[in-house]
Structure formats: C-alpha cells, structure tokens
C-alpha cells in the first residue's frame, strides 16, 4: 500500500530529477525527507511495480530511425494466427487488441523509412490483410501526469 509520502514521491518525481553529484539528496530535500529514505522508498515502489522504472525516459525518435502506428481488421477466427505472425517480428514493439472493426493496433520501430516500408509490406504478405498505416504527422506534447 502507498502512504502519503509514497504518493508525494510519485507525484513530484515524474520529471525534473536533477543531474548532479547527489541527486537523490537534492530531490529528497525538496520532499522534506532524507536521502536514504527516498532511495529505500524508490526501491520498494519498483519492487511492488508501482513504478516500472526510475531514470531517464528517452525519446526514441530523436535518436534516428522510423516509428509508426499501424492497424488491421483481423477476422475473429484468424486472430491468434495473425497475432502470432505480427508479434514474431522484432520490429513490432507493442501490439494491442482493441474493440473496433480495426481490432489490432501495433507500433513498429525500424532503423530507416525504407526498412519501415519493408516491414509493413511483410506483415501484409504474411497475414494476407490490408495494413493501415498511421504515421504521426504532428505531436501535441505530452507530459505524463498520473496522479497517485
């Protein structure tokens, strides 16, 4: 269970962790707790999977490479086979079933635009289905702000 201090940590530390010699000490001082308490609580929140990670969140697109969101309309009787074929490709990072005629939505990451086109073609060939490509045209950013 989370107590008030845990909630304060999760709410205050979703960004802005300092880059300095003793960053936990600095962040802890802002929260009014001791450095070792902050470290111990972060260890516990990670162990309890309240946090998935503590550290830098990298923007993959700023490192080069190509990304897209794609979707397919998969017949129900074929869903497991298609999911297996799509998931087998290492370039597929996430894949979600969604309640819609377009019922399979996945994110593809590749080294280049050319490689992206090839992966989407391969998915269409392997599954026999049309792949709808939804590349990002504009990003309205976006600060994660989950309240604990």
């Amino acid at each position: 269970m989370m107590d008030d201090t845990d909630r304060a940590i999760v709410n205050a530390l979703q960004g802005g962790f300092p880059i300095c010699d003793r960053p936990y000490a600095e962040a802890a001082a802002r929260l009014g707790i001791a450095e070792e308490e902050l470290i111990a609580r972060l260890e516990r929140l990670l162990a309890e999977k309240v946090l998935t990670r503590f550290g830098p969140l990298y923007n993959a697109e700023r490192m080069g490479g190509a990304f897209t969101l794609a979707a397919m309309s998969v017949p129900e009787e074929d869903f497991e086979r298609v999911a297996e074929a799509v998931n087998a490709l290492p370039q597929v990072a996430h894949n979600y079933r969604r309640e819609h005629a377009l019922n399979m939505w996945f994110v593809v990451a590749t080294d280049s635009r050319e490689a992206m086109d090839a992966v989407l073609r391969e998915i269409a060939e392997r599954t026999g289905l049309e792949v709808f490509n939804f590349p990002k045209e504009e990003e309205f950013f976006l600060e994660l702000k989950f309240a604990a």
Partner: protein
Amino acid sequence: MLHDTLDATDRAIVLATQEGLPLAPRPYHAVAESLGLAPEEVMGRMEKLLAAGVIRRIGAVPNHYALGYKANGMTVWDVDDARVSELGRRVGALDFVSHSYRRPRHLPQWPYNLFAMVHGKDRTEVEEKARAIAVLLGDACRGHEILYSSRILKKTGLRFGG
C-alpha cells in the same frame, strides 16, 4: 537506430541507463564507473541529451495500472483540417490526456485525424473525459469514437541494442 545523432559515448550512456538509474547516492558516478568515464562527462552529456530532447525527462515512470488507472481509451476525432493543429495543442494540454497526435485519415474506413489517449479509473471516467474533449473541439469536430484495449498482445517497449 542510434547512429544518426549520437556518438559512441552517448550510445553507451543510453544503453547503461535506459533500464533505470542506479539507486545509489551517486548514481551518475556509478554509471561513469561502469563505463570507464569521468562522472563530469556522463553528467555533461546527459545535460546535453536532455536539452536536445533525446531525454524527455528524468524521474519516476509510474505503472498507471498499479495507480488505479485501469481503463485506457484511444479516443479518435474527425477534426476540421484547418483547426486541428490549434485544437490538438489544447487537447494535448489536458491533464488526463497522456499522448495526442495528428495522424492521416484512411477514407472511407477511417475518418479520424486526431488521436488522444485518455486514462481513467474505469470506462465511465474515460467517457466523461471524452465528453470534455468533445466540448473543447466544439463544431470543428464531425465525429469521434473511443477504442478500448481489451488485450495486450505484445509489449516489449522500445529498447536499443546499440
């Protein structure tokens, strides 16, 4: 994937920190030691990566499911092309929207050009929040849908092999 904008030392830092920072009093020193670099160099390069937007932010990445946000709806909107950029920025600024993007339509099957991911405790809450987006978009919006995820088929995240 990392070869366009980052040099070998930057890549080593990304690989050493993408799973998280060490939970030790001097985490950047620990990273530096594992890479055979000076702590000042690691901190200086991370400052630059942060300023360049390669690092979006440094801190806690919550598991929103564990925080009670059990419903997530991908809300999609058919918004007047002339106004979608201006309105998209306002939707992206709402505190219950985690990601918002303009994406292409695929007519006739898919008329929607604005995507906004909405998180809530349950579907009722997601629907209330979608109504708030509908109010914000007003007559610039010709229709919308909410696509709930019913199963995670794969979730490896984006990880770099260097």
